[in-house]
């Protein structure tokens, strides 16, 4: 085992995949000499050269669309958007080309592309650089959506994404980049489509993903001191959703709260709640709770942004409300 930050883990995954498969290349803005807006690609230009580390003009639609075309030609682009918020500009290419291309060829054409992007607030970066976008993309069959919460999963899931023959949207959280964790020394992958119980408990299932897994674990620690034994499940992949792992946890705890950073309304939590009541209705002992951001744009200023975001205390409060009702 070695200790890596999420940033290092993602960089290693890209590096190893570039070394493993000549078809892999990186495409995005200021990846080369600049090293990426969050320094994910630092050092890669020197090692792989500009044919593999491709800096584009400031053109998100072209980044996504060009990745689709290159994937149709048998290459395996790893595209980066500087901020997930900019996916709106690449959205047409993502939704109307990337997501449909395999189906429109009736499965005869693989479309191996990865679209990486950092999302999330907490850094006073303002309303256009802090949003969570996964539920904007969730309603699109044909895309896979992966959101790692730690260094181990980030590396293993990204390697799986690069090797996947389907388009994968790989959503990182900017507050996770400096988070360190244990990562195996050698080659490994983490399968797409598998959730993971990251803390066992018997009283309630806190179901979460990305940065909010950290907050959920903190909440579970606080709850433990008050005699509430919470299980924490990391969804890891929103599409395809690992219903069985989530349902199994809920069948055991009989209660669930879903935590994500995006606003509650229309968030992925609604979808997860729906599949859980289908899969585990007879076991549920309380309504399924949801914790998310307020129903506003992400405010810029620190005090407002902190009030807007879900946090450990909000999770604790929601859990107590469900457990003690």
């Amino acid at each position, binding site marked *: 085992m070695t200790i890596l930050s999420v940033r290092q883990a993602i960089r290693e995954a890209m590096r190893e995949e570039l070394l493993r498969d000549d078809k892999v290349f990186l495409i995005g803005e200021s990846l080369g000499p*600049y090293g990426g807006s969050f320094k994910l690609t630092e050092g890669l230009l020197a090692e792989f050269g500009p044919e593999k580390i491709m800096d584009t*003009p*400031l053109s998100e639609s072209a980044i996504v669309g060009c990745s689709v075309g290159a994937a149709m030609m048998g290459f395996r682009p790893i595209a980066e958007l500087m901020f997930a918020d900019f996916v709106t500009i690449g959205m047409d290419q993502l939704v109307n080309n990337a997501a449909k291309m395999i189906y429109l060829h009736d499965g005869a054409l693989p479309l191996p592309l990865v679209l990486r992007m950092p999302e999330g607030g907490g850094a006073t970066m303002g309303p*256009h650089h802090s949003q969570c976008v996964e539920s904007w993309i969730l309603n699109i069959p044909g895309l896979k959506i992966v959101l790692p919460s730690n260094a181990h999963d980030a590396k293993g899931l990204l390697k799986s994404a690069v090797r996947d023959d389907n388009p994968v949207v790989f959503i990182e959280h900017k507050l996770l980049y400096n988070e360190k964790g244990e990562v195996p020394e050698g080659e490994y992958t983490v399968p797409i489509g598998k959730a993971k119980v990251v803390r066992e408990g018997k009283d309630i299932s806190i179901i979460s993903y990305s940065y909010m897994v950290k907050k959920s674990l903190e909440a579970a620690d606080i709850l433990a001191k008050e005699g509430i034994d919470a299980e924490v499940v990391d969804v890891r992949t929103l599409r395809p959703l690992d219903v069985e792992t989530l349902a199994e946890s809920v069948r055991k705890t009989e209660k669930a709260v879903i935590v994500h950073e995006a606003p509650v309304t229309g968030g992925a939590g609604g979808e997860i709640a729906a599949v859980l009541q289908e899969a585990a209705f007879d076991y549920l002992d309380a309504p399924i709770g949801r914790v998310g951001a307020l129903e506003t744009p992400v*405010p810029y200023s620190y005090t407002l942004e902190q009030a807007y975001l879900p946090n450990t205390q909000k999770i604790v409060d929601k859990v107590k409300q469900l457990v003690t009702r």
Partner: protein
Amino acid sequence: MYVEKLNPKDYEKLYYYLYLTRYADELICKNYKQGMLQESHHSCQGEEAIAVGSGILLGKDDYVCPSLRARGYFYLKGATLKEMMAGMYGKVTGPSRGKNTSHHMGDMDRGIVCGSGIIGGALPVAVGVGLGIKKRGSKGVVLVSFGDGSTSRGDFHEAMNLAAVWKLPVLFVCENNRMAMGNTIEGEMAIDRVAIRADAYGMPGVTANGNDVLAVYEATAAAIERARKGGGPTLLEFTTHRWTGHGVKDADAYRDRAVVESYKQDCPLDNFRKVLLAKGILKKRDLDRIEKAAMKEVDDAVEYAVQSDHPPVDIVATNVYV
């Protein structure tokens, strides 16, 4: 020549805002590094003449939508240094009580069009403001500013085309510092002048020295007159240099230090000072007086920002809808 009509008061005003923009930026960078500010900052040092030389021409009925770097427009269009600075500090006295950043502040009453952190995203909105001006039958214009890198966005091309087809009073002002974050202009476009993009849309494209405030003034004045007379949009390209990293956190390690240092020989403030003194328009003691006044306005604004309160959390969910 429009410049010939400038009187000494105009020259004072130009110098005042050039100096104020520079000094404010230096303080912002310094205080940011000391961890006092919340807003990400993109320095305009070395590029001040563009916003000041064009912004000074905007009147009450005109609108402006500044780029991330073009601070001078705000000051000239009636945003106070105090509210801008309070915004940088994330205070309740900043734009929209801390909900918005200062560099995207919007206030239609003062003719300041809310910007977007999505580069290029403000351009179609500016075209809509131009449409509104035309529909109202006003003689106003709207000036939207952006960097060279922004011209790679589809929104730029759609906005340029629509403004030209409908002959709207829009000034597209490109601050060409030949950089877009870590990318150079060669990696951004296969042409050597942004202004020639105008040909494709049937509007004039003009390139002028962005480090010469009078050249900026001259080119902008002509474009404004054309727009006010119903002649439609113009693409103005002002050449300049980026003195700092992209943002205040960027160490700028990917550029040759000697080259970046050489840019400082072409300082828009020095350039203007030389003209003012050589032509005897202002004396050294006038410059000193103007600088002092500008520094005081900025220092007072910092003090105001520091003293202001943080936004109360109970406003967070207000005014999502009217």
